[in-house]
């Protein structure tokens, strides 16, 4: 039997170690464990690597503790713009999407672009139009609202900085 393997990440912009509480740590580790189990189960049952990475990322997108999908950070104008990409190592087919709003799972859209279009990367309103044509779910702005992300945005606006994921002491002004 061949080997199977799955790895996931939830971003390198972690909460500072000094600010991490046991409760928060458990929350992050549980979320990671659930996502890896979803993908690994697919691999164990003979599913493809493409299916496994899509489902694992979808699970992470649905968890607001990570900066993707539902947990996406606020842009300068108070919206959420999301990007995603997917590549198959066997066929070298790739699909990607950038700057989309209100699409529930951008990774699903990236895969739809890979499978159902002759393009690799679609952006903005055009990508959203393609998502509607493929009947992908959209969510209202309230779905993407998170109080922690909102406070990050308020602080960033006050200091006119741009910050990476959770990291609160390293900003790019």
């Amino acid at each position: 039997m061949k080997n199977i393997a799955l790895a996931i990440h939830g971003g390198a912009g972690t909460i500072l170690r000094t600010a991490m509480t046991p409760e928060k740590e458990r929350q992050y580790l549980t979320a990671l464990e659930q996502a890896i189990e979803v993908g690994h189960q697919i691999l164990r049952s003979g599913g493809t690597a493409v299916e496994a990475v899509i489902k694992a990322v979808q699970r992470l997108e649905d968890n607001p503790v990570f900066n993707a999908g539902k947990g996406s950070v606020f842009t300068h104008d108070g919206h959420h713009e999301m990007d995603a990409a997917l590549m198959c190592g066997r066929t070298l087919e790739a699909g990607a999407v950038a700057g989309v709003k209100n699409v529930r799972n951008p990774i699903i859209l990236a895969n739809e672009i890979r499978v159902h279009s002759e393009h690799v990367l679609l952006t903005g309103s055009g990508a959203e139009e393609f998502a509607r044509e493929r009947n992908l779910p959209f969510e209202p702005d309230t779905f993407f609202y998170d109080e922690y992300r909102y406070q990050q945005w308020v602080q960033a606006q006050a200091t006119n900085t741009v910050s990476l994921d959770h990291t609160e002491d390293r900003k790019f002004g």
Partner: protein
Amino acid sequence: TVGAVAVDLEGNLAAATSTGGMTNKKYNRIGDSPIIGAGTYANNETCAVSCTGHGEYFMRAVVAYDVSCLMEYKGYSLQQACDYVVNDKLVKLGGEGGLIAVDAQANIVLSFNSEGMYRAARRNQEPTYLRIYND
């Protein structure tokens, strides 16, 4: 940013990355995540890679494809390729972040030069590896 890389029973690889970008970003800024070869790349002959970090540096360094190229053209192992790109090349550029990668032999590398990276991995029936910081 979130991401996943995998190798299946057929030895096929895949990589996926998704992100909400940077807080308070303007001008429709796009990072490395949706750029094939920069933040996301997969090739059965080499590896599958998903990146996370300060995207502008990852784009300049073409990080994901660079890992693959080091394996293909210089014969580096997955570990050697990731270590060089993340801890040498990226550091010299000033880029902070990391990546996850897997090859067709199910070798896994979780490499980062930041204080931490939310990460997990599982190979075959081995226990799940879960970490946040550089412990």
